[in-house]
């Protein structure tokens, strides 16, 4: 029987945390994990943020990010325990036997150096190839990974290629030294959905053709199902379930795995348009100051009270710009915004206070949307004071009501944002928007920074609140699963135009235009062999890679 390439036994990993106002203390973030990886196999590590999956991946290179330290256990690579190796031997292992592909290639490439130099650096440093041979191998990999102009792309700088291309270059970087094991850490998470599918296919082919083993880390079970042989499910630093991909996807044993597999199963029946629209965008055309081209072309959409309009599209499609136009941050070049029967002035500063109150926003990064030095009570209390002049008792009572509505309850008033989890922060932002008693809330990618189960909770809360407060949502997102869960009507945006618009069922029912088809078919499905099926049936190439 062959020996495993990577053998992990009782791996414990700790970190030092610095809670505000307290002494630093050591915590354990991975509590003894065991697994084997055979040569040439792919193991998927899956879990939510804080599950320890990246930390475990980096432990296979004896590396701890920031203050993270490996505190116990054994990590055997090619028959030796690397945790007992000297730093010099570990440096031979890194970039030689084991290599790493990070989530954000854009941040992981040195902006001051050409791509080729960075791709071949480890192979040359570790003495695997001469400079000439390493460059020849890099060109070969560029070709295999489907990069345009493989002969010359290495001479470019990282900012001169697109995000999807850079992620492929990162894969070439990892494969160039002919490693035995590659750690893929969320390699497609930061990409647009139509780009993700191409990069995923390129990675899968490269793994198959080079016979390298891989640890594939992701929070997206549907993605990992396409590439891995086995899957390990992690939660809070413990292994929950470990088995063949087919078993995990189709016959999960543990409740937590079942929850992950069935995530995004919210049923939301479509409401048909009723009454006067609360928001009407008529022929909106807009461009940014100092540029020569329009980013929105003749956009027409309507939104009815108590309903949700989902605006879907990839980065650069103009969906966030539409939000900026409606809020008055970017006055349009042409067109009208009718809000609750009256026309809004194009510019934010000339709008009366009631217009500002009735139109609120919730942002993607709850972290940066709150003042870290203010307590939750102050944050939610501010709009109460500003719009309604509430003070003292009355204000406190209303703050508590709002906290109850977002299911946070007592004791949260005096907390600071740093003491809240990601989901709780987003709930506070929702309460702040609701405090103004708005007619319309613009939600800009409010769940995309959250883990799937937490995001589900937020979506359920938003639907619940919509029923109680009769508020309308303009829901901007790139995630079609979210759209299915929450929308009544959908506008698909592509290159600044509304490509397809109508009720949810109508938009999501064929026949599709080519772009909508590409977008819808690119959403990973929790099904083995999905990737191959989709690529075989495509009508249109994605643009972003």
């Amino acid at each position, binding site marked *: 029987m062959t020996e495993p390439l990577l053998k992990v036994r009782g791996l414990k990993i700790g970190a030092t945390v610095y809670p505000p106002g307290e002494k630093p203390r050591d915590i354990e973030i991975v509590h003894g994990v065991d697994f084997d990886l055979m040569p040439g196999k792919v193991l998927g590590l899956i879990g939510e943020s804080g599950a320890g999956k990246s930390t475990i991946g980096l432990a296979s*290179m004896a590396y701890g990010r920031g203050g993270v330290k490996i505190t116990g256990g054994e990590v055997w690579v090619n028959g030796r325990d690397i945790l007992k190796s000297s730093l010099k031997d570990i*440096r031979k292992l890194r970039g030689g036997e084991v290599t790493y592909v*990070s989530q954000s290639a854009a941040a992981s490439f*040195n902006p001051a150096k050409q791509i080729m130099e960075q791709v071949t650096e*480890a192979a040359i440093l570790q003495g695997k190839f001469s400079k000439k041979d390493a460059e020849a191998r890099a060109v070969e990999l560029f070709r295999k990974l489907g990069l345009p102009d493989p002969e010359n792309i290495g001479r470019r700088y990282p*900012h001169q290629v697109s995000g999807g291309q850079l992620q492929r270059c990162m894969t070439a970087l990892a494969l160039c030294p002919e490693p035995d094991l590659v750690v893929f850490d969320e390699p497609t998470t930061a990409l647009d959905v139509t780009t993700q599918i191409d990069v995923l296919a390129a990675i899968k082919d490269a793994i198959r053709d080079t016979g390298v083993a891989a640890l594939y880390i992701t929070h997206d079970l549907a993605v990992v199902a396409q590439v891995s042989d086995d899957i390990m499910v992690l939660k809070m630093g413990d292994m929950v379930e470990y088995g063949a991909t087919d078993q995990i996807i189709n016959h999960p044993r543990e409740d937590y795995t079942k929850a992950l597999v069935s995530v995004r199963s919210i049923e939301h029946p479509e409401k048909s348009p009723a009454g006067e629209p609360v928001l009407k965008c008529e022929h909106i055309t807009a461009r940014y100051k100092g540029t020569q081209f329009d980013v929105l072309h003749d956009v027409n959409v309507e939104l009815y009270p108590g309903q949700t309009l989902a605006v879907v599209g990839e980065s650069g499609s103009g969906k966030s710009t539409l939000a900026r136009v409606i809020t008055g941050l970017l006055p349009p070049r042409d067109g009208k915004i009718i809000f609750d029967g009256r026309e809004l002035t194009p510019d934010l500063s000339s709008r009366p206070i009631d217009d500002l109150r009735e139109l609120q926003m919730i942002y993607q990064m709850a972290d940066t949307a709150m003042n870290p030095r203010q307590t939750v009570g102050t944050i939610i209390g501010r709009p109460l004071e500003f719009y309604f002049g509430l003070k003292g008792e009355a204000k406190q009572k209303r703050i508590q009501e709002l906290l109850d509505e977002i299911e946070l309850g007592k004791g949260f008033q005096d907390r600071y944002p740093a003491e809240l989890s990601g989901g709780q922060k987003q709930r506070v932002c929702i309460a702040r928007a609701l405090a103004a008693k708005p007619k319309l809330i613009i939600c800009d990618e409010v769940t995309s920074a959250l883990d799937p189960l937490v995001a589900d909770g937020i979506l359920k809360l938003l639907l619940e609140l919509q029923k109680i407060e009769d508020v309308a949502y303009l829901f901007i997102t790139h995630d079609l699963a979210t759209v299915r869960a929450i929308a009544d009507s959908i506008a698909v945006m592509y290159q600044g135009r509304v490509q397809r618009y109508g009720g949810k069922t109508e938009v999501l029912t064929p026949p599709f235009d080519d772009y909508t088809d590409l977008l819808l078919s690119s959403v990973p499905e929790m099904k083995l062999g999905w990737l191959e099926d989709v690529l075989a049936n495509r009508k249109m190439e994605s643009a972003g890679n």
Partner: protein
Amino acid sequence: MHPILKLVLQRIALGILLLFAASAMIFGLTEALPGDAAQAVLGQGATEEALANLRREMGLDQPAITRYFQWLGGIVQGDLGTSITNRLDIATSISNRLGNTLFLAFWAAVFSVPLAIFLGLLAVRYQNRWPDKVISGATLATISIPEFLIGYVLVYFIAVQLGWFAPLALISDSMSLGQKLHAIALPVIVLTMVVLAHMMRMTRAAILNVMQSAYIETAELKGLSTFNVIRKHAFPNAIAPIVTVVMLNLAYLVVGVVVVEVVFVYPGMGQYLVDAVVKRDVPVVLACGVIFAGIYISLNLIADLVSILANPRLRHPK
């Protein structure tokens, strides 16, 4: 036009504009002082008539604007005017002294800049360990002590007690380079100590800032040693802030050496300027001011240009 060429030309044009503004300000400030050159030449006891005659002779009866443009026109052609105390051509007197000042600044820079950057790299390599603390502490101490004090302390111990160097940094054209360097050793040491801390700490901070980047992790995971990670991946991205602070300190070495020159009786611009101020020799003060402004602006312009050129996004547009 290549965007970088456009940016560079913009900066140069801005630098020239700034120089004109500085010249106007220097001229305006000397105008605002009570009394004028004629008064300075003739002294307090001069009669109104004598003053008026001299003013006419020196052209001081013209309006300030006219005199400013006459003066400016002279400068543009290389004519800095005539000293009123010794009637000598200022350009000739200054060229020698400016040469001496630049000589001192040059050698101070030759020692201090590489040393500061090397110490900065070392401090990052051993961050928060004893070498870092020793380097930070020692350089902070030298910048905290006034330079004239360091100067006199060095003169007392090294020149007077040990007798290794002369206490006065007197140089002349007849000396060989070796003799000159020996003569200016003490002021070079003092200047190095003064500018070292600022440059070293900026280097350390700039590199530490870059060390947070994800691409540093990529380099570490390629198996590079810590020093190579800093040298190959962090330093190239920290050049812009480092060059800015280096240029600022080079400007200080030229413009701010007045005190050190006086302490060591060094025949440079600083001495010359102090003498001229004492004697109310307005044309000399003006000339020195404009030259200092020019040096300051051009060094900062160089820093700006290096920052632009160090940015790969500007150097290699999409």
